[in-house]
């Protein structure tokens, strides 16, 4: 049996590769097997294209969930509907507690790119708050599976179902409502993309549009209703153009057509025709225009879809029986075509425009932020460029700085970059690619190509440059190493001692030695004339290679062995060997003072070792994928790294914190190197581009070590100097430019906070002390240290709240005490001459002196407080994650910002009063637009919680303090938004 099958298989193999004539011959040859062969060729022709294309694991990934099963923060209650792209469940959310419609998308529906867009748009979708739109609460990924949590619309019928039995005006009203809702989304930059009756639900007589904004991401997985007209516009079907509002107009038009019976008036038919015109430009420009025409029809006015003649207008007027119309007609006066009659809805065009502009701005910000999260720099740049200029604020400048334009982008020698190098002292770079047959040397300052060396056949080359950039060294697949003068290209020497492929070349700092490592593990050290000085062996081959700065030692990083070895070049002896990486070591670099060696590995980490003994110093984690190259800065203790994850990072090699993350490469970063001026970093990406980054213009979130256990208070003393304090009054100072943190001594104080010039603390003895910046201690008064719970500065005095609800003010003017609450006080603050106390239950009281001026209660404990300069508004951060804006002194609530999912521990208003920053236990820092009441940006930078925020005086920097739990060190992050150049 097998023999027979094998013959059949052989025939099949030939037949699949054959032309039709040849196939006929093969079939004839098949003899007894002909029937089966034909059958199999038939299967081949008729096989579904995606048969077995989805790997088994993805197929098994569960999209069907059971009742009671937990998916992230949701608990499944039942299934509602299943479709081509996924299943919709009814689910209960934990926090906030509510029942939602949870759509779980089927695996493999979204491509990587689509997934990125999906996440980027989630925030935009969440902002669509309209009674006619089923609100999207959140969207994201759960264990790799995309989900959307939406407002549940229970017991709802689809538009067409509900419309049966209704008269025409009622149906048109419903559709117009749907148009209004869809238009609302358009104005905010969201196209629905999948409008159909199933997505237009009617509840309590009103329309709710569901399933927003995911259709575009879904691409191919769109429903086509068999046998009835498709809702997809021609441009959607053919995917010729991106979807826009008019695609939704088309679909709405199709639905409208379905709502009409055979006796529908011609005017309405004209509306349908215009909405479903094949060319986008022939349709209504917006869903609102479509709704307007429907309303015009219902008001017996001429619809714009029809070019009405004079008599038609009169006829309509007559129907409305206005005296004016009758009079005009009797006078035989012609009506001006296109006369617009007021529909009774006054629209303030200016306000609508401002509204639309605001929403457009918000849309671009959230889209850019989403794109950046997935390193899609191009998309982010496009979005930011679109933001309306007049509205650009801190968050825009912050994002722009993230997408930093490198000072220059040069074209490399071709795509599929193979090797690259930067000269040690001159701004010259060389690179070789697999796509073009040359090695190219470029001058970075001018961008000029200095030399192009053709490669020999298909041999791949790696390269290195002499320090002054005047000699190019290349290593080939056949083991040869040669040296050519730049720019003449004159061949200086060629060494053919090695026979195995050269992996990596390095040149010593003085240019006197050149080293080549080969795939068979041999390591050759040549002198500047091409004579072999030394031959070493690193088993398994070494891809990492670096000379010590003094040229006396050589370091190699092993591929298979995953080790780092140090060699003495004078004797050839191995000095030490260090292990620790989990995968191939790809690159090495030695610090300029010869103290440290850094190794980058495919395991995604960088390890820093002592150069003298190989002692482990640091592990730098953060790259999402393998590290391909590392380079120490010529003078500062900084280390640059380039990774397969397309990012370039700059680290502080002493402390281990991340200084910079540079985005821009589209493929793996293969090489990084510093220019001698120490200001510019050159990186080569496999896509063939060379980026030259100016690191002076730093703008991305450096991370500083903070104070244990928590950074409770932050305050910028100047734009560069940041003061930090823990709850217990331990103070530290950080310099934002050098990133150095100097901690003050631990004095064992009970509680403390930062004050205008220095800090306040309560010693164990109960002494309330003011410590000024130069260290002088002034005792302001005494309290019962054991009972104190809160402290805040108040014009040179200190105000304290205690466990018994008493407030005490101590200072130069004496002491003042009163009973403020009947329960423990958790926070005190002073704003604009008023004192604000928060008690444990959430009661917030406002005082002027001892007199209570206002009070408001919150059911959830109020925590953080902030106010504006003139003390007219108070911002209260609550433990349910919301922020209230209250007027001072009255205490009336003016607004409420929602978005955080954990208690708010820190609030700070920007110096210009336009933005509010909040730090929450959900680990994020959010930026709010105060006047609009919306969240602009979410900054993710702390691992578990964020506790404090502060603005620099010039408003360009935001500092946030946070932590990862009591046991681990907490961090301070600096978020920058430099002013435009």
């Amino acid at each position: 049996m097998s023999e027979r099958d094998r013959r059949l298989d052989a025939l099949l193999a030939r037949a699949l590769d054959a032309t039709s004539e040849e196939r006929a011959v093969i079939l004839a040859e098949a003899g007894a097997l002909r029937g089966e062969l034909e059958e199999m060729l038939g299967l081949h022709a008729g096989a579904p294209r995606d048969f077995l294309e989805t790997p088994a694991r993805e197929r098994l990934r569960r999209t069907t969930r059971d009742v009671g099963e937990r998916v992230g923060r949701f608990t499944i209650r039942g299934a509602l509907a299943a479709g081509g792209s996924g299943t919709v469940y009814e689910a209960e959310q934990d926090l906030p507690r509510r029942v939602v419609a949870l759509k779980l998308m089927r695996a493999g529906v979204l491509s990587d790119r689509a997934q990125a867009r999906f996440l980027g748009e989630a925030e935009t979708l969440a902002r669509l708050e309209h009674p006619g739109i089923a609100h999207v609460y959140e969207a994201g990924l759960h264990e790799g599976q995309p989900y959307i949590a939406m407002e549940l619309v229970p017991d709802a019928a689809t538009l067409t179902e509900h419309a049966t039995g209704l008269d025409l005006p009622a149906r048109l009203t419903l559709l117009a409502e749907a148009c209004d809702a869809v238009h609302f989304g358009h104005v905010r930059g969201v196209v629905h993309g999948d409008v159909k009756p199933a997505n237009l639900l009617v509840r309590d007589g009103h329309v709710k549009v569901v399933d927003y904004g995911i259709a575009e991401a879904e691409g191919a997985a769109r429903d086509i209703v068999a046998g009835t007209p498709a809702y997809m516009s021609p441009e959607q079907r053919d995917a010729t153009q991106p979807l826009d509002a008019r695609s939704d107009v088309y679909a709405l038009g199709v639905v409208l057509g379905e709502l009409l019976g055979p006796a529908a008036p011609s005017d309405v038919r004209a509306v349908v025709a215009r909405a479903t015109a094949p060319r986008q430009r022939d349709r209504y420009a917006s869903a609102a225009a479509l709704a307007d025409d429907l309303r015009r029809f219902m008001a017996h006015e001429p619809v714009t879809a029809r070019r009405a003649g004079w008599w038609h207008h009169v006829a309509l007027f007559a129907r409305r029986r206005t005296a004016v119309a009758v009079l005009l007609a009797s006078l035989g006066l012609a009506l001006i075509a296109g006369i617009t009659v007021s529909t009774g809805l006054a629209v303030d065009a200016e306000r609508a425009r401002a509204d639309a502009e605001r929403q457009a701005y918000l849309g671009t910000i959230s889209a850019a932020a989403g794109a950046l999260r997935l390193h899609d720099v191009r998309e982010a740049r496009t979005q930011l460029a679109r933001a309306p200029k007049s509205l650009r604020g801190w968050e825009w400048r912050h994002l722009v700085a993230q997408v930093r334009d490198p000072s220059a982008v040069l074209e490399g020698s071709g795509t599929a970059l193979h090797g690259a190098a930067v000269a040690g002292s001159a701004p010259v770079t060389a690179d070789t690619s697999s796509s073009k047959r040359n090695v190219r040397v470029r001058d970075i300052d001018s961008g000029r190509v200095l030399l192009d060396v053709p490669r020999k056949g298909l041999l791949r080359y790696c390269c290195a440059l002499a320090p002054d950039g005047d000699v190019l060294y290349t290593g080939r697949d056949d083991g040869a190493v040669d040296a050519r003068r730049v720019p003449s290209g004159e061949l200086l020497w060629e060494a053919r001692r090695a026979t195995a492929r050269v992996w990596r070349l390095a040149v010593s700092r003085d240019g006197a030695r050149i080293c080549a490592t080969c795939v068979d593990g041999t390591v050759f050290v040549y002198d500047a004339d091409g004579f072999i000085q030394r031959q070493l062996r690193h088993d398994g081959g070494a891809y990492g290679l670096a000379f010590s700065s003094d040229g006396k030692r050589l370091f190699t990083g092993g591929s298979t062995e995953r080790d780092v070895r140090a060699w003495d070049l004078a004797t050839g002896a191995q000095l030490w060997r260090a292990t620790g990486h989990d995968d191939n070591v790809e690159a090495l670099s030695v610090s300029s003072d010869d103290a440290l060696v850094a190794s980058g590995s495919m395991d995604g980490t960088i390890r820093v070792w002592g150069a003298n003994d190989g002692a482990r110093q640091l592990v730098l984690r953060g790259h999402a994928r393998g590290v391909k190259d590392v380079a120490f800065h010529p003078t500062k203790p900084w280390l640059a790294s380039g990774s397969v994850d397309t990012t370039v990072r700059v680290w502080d090699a002493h402390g281990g914190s991340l200084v910079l993350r540079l985005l821009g490469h589209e493929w793996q970063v293969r090489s990084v190197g510093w220019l001698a001026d120490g200001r510019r970093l050159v990186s080569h990406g496999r896509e063939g581009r060379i980026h030259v980054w100016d690191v002076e213009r730093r703008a991305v979130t450096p991370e500083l070590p903070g104070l244990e256990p928590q950074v409770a208070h932050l305050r910028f003393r100047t734009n560069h100097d940041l003061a930090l304090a823990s709850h217990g009054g331990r103070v530290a100072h950080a310099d934002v430019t050098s990133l150095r943190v100097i901690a003050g001594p631990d004095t064992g104080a009970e509680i403390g906070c930062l004050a205008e010039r220095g800090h306040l603390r309560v010693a164990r003895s109960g002494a309330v002390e003011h410590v000024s910046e130069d260290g002088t201690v002034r005792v302001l008064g005494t309290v019962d240290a054991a009972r104190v719970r809160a402290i805040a500065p108040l014009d040179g005095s200190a105000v304290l709240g205690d466990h018994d609800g008493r407030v005490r003010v101590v200072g130069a003017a004496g002491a003042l005490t009163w009973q403020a609450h009947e329960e423990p006080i958790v926070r005190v603050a002073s704003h604009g001459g008023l004192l604000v106390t928060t008690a444990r239950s959430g009661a917030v009281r406002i005082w002027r002196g001892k007199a209570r001026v206002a009070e408001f209660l919150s059911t959830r404990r109020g925590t953080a407080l902030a106010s504006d300069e003139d003390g007219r508004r108070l911002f209260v951060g609550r433990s349910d994650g919301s922020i209230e804006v209250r007027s001072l002194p009255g205490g009336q609530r003016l607004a409420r910002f929602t978005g955080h999912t954990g208690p708010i521990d820190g609030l700070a208003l920007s110096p210009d009063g336009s933005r509010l920053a909040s730090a929450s236990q959900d680990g994020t820092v959010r930026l709010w637009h105060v006047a609009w009441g919306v969240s602009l940006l979410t900054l993710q930078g702390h691992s578990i919680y964020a506790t404090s925020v502060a603005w620099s005086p010039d408003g360009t920097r935001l500092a946030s303090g946070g932590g990862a739990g009591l046991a681990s060190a907490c961090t301070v992050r600096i978020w920058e938004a430099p002013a435009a150049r």
Partner: protein
Amino acid sequence: MTPDPNPPPAGHVTQLLQGVQQEEDGARDALFEAVYAELRAMAGARMRGERPSHTLQPTALVHEAFVKLVGRDPAGFDGRRHFLHAAARAMRQILVDHARARAAQKRGGGAQRVTLEETSHGTIDPGEEVLQVHEAIAKLESIDVQLARVVELRYFAGLKVEETASLMDVTERTVYRLWERARIWLLREMT
């Protein structure tokens, strides 16, 4: 075009699978992930041409996973093909077990099941598909072991065409050819 002359000793794979069966989903998943990662890494390395083809050791990760599940270090895999075979079979077995468990759950009682199911094409249930392909692979092996290998690597291990080509040491074109033929055979066996 001939059956594999050197199949690995049954012992290795069986031991591995026994270990897997004793653990719960998490461990199974971990092993799958580890093996998958290793295969991809191997494929990637070979594509870069950066690893000598004769010395190929699975990473510490995979060793760890093996040790954790099997209890002792599996004897060194002699040769890439050996490891490849074991890895592919292990992944396949993990998935088949999963599909079987799923099928059992659906038939069996217990909590209220949500009955809605969507499928990509026709009416074939994903779990059924996995099991049927698994059964049909034996047939493929008897015809041409490369056909079976391609299905194991592309369908069960989920590797891309270039990775498969790299591991099988053939061109991408060959992988496409094999894949086409394998699908025809499977279609024939399964429908």
